[in-house]
């Protein structure tokens, strides 16, 4: 039960002269909530992109539930239960909130090469989608066009879509980005309910979120993981303080 759900070894990615990922190694146990923190420009987005399958690494491997998924595309990884949310809200603005989630459900609910029956009416899609919207607190806003939702609501919609299809691993890229204090607390509380049942990799700047949610924390600086351990261990780590928390203390 407590084996590694995600294993990353020797991940390397360069953009010309810039080494964005420098032999990144990571182990995430099943059921664990693992936070990745690091200063701006550390390469967090590049790392997430490689884990999600959007970007091919130059070298290294990514294993998911024991399977080597390094060569798999993003859609293929999503179908295997590796879901991601985006740092900059990425939803379907012209569809309603419900339709947004229904689409995410649809990807895991059998073939989409169906050409006649109206998708909007399918209970097999509607019911789970409604459920997910209720979970993230958007039940009342189900029929609103996604573009007209408030920023915090859109981030919640983003999470609901990420949860569709019951993924085993959630890759959350700054889920509370741009949220106010109250919304942030609500999101953190919600994510806390997912702990244990789902494996979560959380990339965040917000230290509240990190230290209240994470079981373990890895610190990424200049494309390298310089430390990995419990939140308390990371807080105490001198190198980390210097590279990252030290900057924050100086602010």
């Amino acid at each position, binding site marked *: 039960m407590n084996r590694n759900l995600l294993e990353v070894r020797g991940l390397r990615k360069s953009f010309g002269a810039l080494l964005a990922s420098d032999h990144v190694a990571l182990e995430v146990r099943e059921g664990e909530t693992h936070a990745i923190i690091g200063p701006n420009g550390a390469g967090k987005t590049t790392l997430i992109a490689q884990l999600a399958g959007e970007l091919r690494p130059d070298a290294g491997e990514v294993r998911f539930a024991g399977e080597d998924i390094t060569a798999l*595309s993003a859609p293929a990884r999503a179908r295997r239960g590796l879901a991601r949310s985006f740092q900059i809200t990425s939803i379907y603005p*012209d569809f309603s909130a419900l339709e947004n989630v229904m689409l995410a459900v649809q990807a895991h609910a059998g073939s989409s*090469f169906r050409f006649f029956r*109206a998708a909007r009416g399918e209970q097999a899609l509607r019911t789970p989608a409604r459920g997910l919207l209720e979970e993230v607190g958007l039940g009342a806003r189900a029929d609103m066009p996604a573009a007209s939702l408030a920023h915090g609501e859109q981030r919640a919609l983003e999470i609901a879509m990420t949860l569709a299809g019951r993924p085993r691993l959630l890759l959350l890229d700054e889920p509370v980005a741009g949220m106010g204090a109250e919304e942030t607390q609500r999101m953190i509380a919600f994510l806390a309910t997912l702990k244990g049942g789902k494996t979560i990799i959380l990339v965040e700047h917000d230290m509240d979120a990190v230290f209240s949610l994470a079981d373990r924390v890895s610190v990424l600086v200049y494309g390298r993981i310089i430390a990995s351990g419990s939140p308390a261990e990371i807080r105490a780590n001198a190198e980390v303080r210097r590279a990252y928390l030290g900057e924050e203390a100086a602010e």
Partner: protein
Amino acid sequence: MSPRHRVLALALGLLLLAAVPPVASLFNQPFYLDLVRRIMIFAIAAASLNLILGYGGMISFGHAAYLGVGGYAVGVLAHYGVVDGVLQWSLAVCASALVALVIGAVSLRTSGVYFIMITLAFTQMLYYLGISIEEFGGDDGMRLAGRSRFPGIDLGDSDVFYYLVLAILVLVLFFGHRLVNSRFGMVIRAARSNEARTRAIGFSPYPYRLAAFVIAGAVCGLAGALLVNHTAYLTPEFMNWTRSGELMFMVILGGMGSVAGPVLGAFALLVLEDLLSGWTQHWQIILGPLLVLSVLFFRRGLAGVIFGRHE
């Protein structure tokens, strides 16, 4: 406009179209029957383009190629003495689907500017192919050896042919409507709206887009079969890239991503062309800037104006 009003408006439009033959014969103006029939055939072609362009966001500048493939399938068979309509039109549809499959498979691996240029280039290739085959008239084209024959339906009868086209148009619009709201249609529309998101939830757009491309090509091939029967003349000009541009304008002017749009667009553009060409032989000098202005200022299209926000 509420859904009920929209249905009423569509029903009204249908009624008007159905009334054209009796009205035209009442006033002894067969020209208008011909004109509207021609417009409806192009509306079918535009509707097929609407699937990939309007809903799918794929800027295919080579769609007229399938008018040619369909037309040539019928014309070539007729040339060799095969006039069975079912056989001819089946071949028109299948050949168009096959060509669309090949062109789509190559083109859809690219995107953006490349995609536009490649689809244009492939169409031109087919056009040159059509011109170079002397057997079928080269760039002059040739007369259709004989109209397609169906049991019980005489395409030589103007009215009968008109109603056949109308029936096909209605079917195309109906199935098109079901298609864009089906699971498949939702993926296509999602891929257009936000491709990164669509990949992230687990859909690889390529197979769906390719399927849509093939469906659109096949339906346009059917339009080509209708067109060649309508004009009774087969020419590579069916595939001219300016024809592709016209089809795109019909989709845009009519309003992208709406079911009625292509019909409105076909009417608007072809009626406009007809009026202008009656006015002066240099009508394109007026049409050109009008099209430019419509792109700059009238992007919502007619359906957007008449029906309001449509989903």
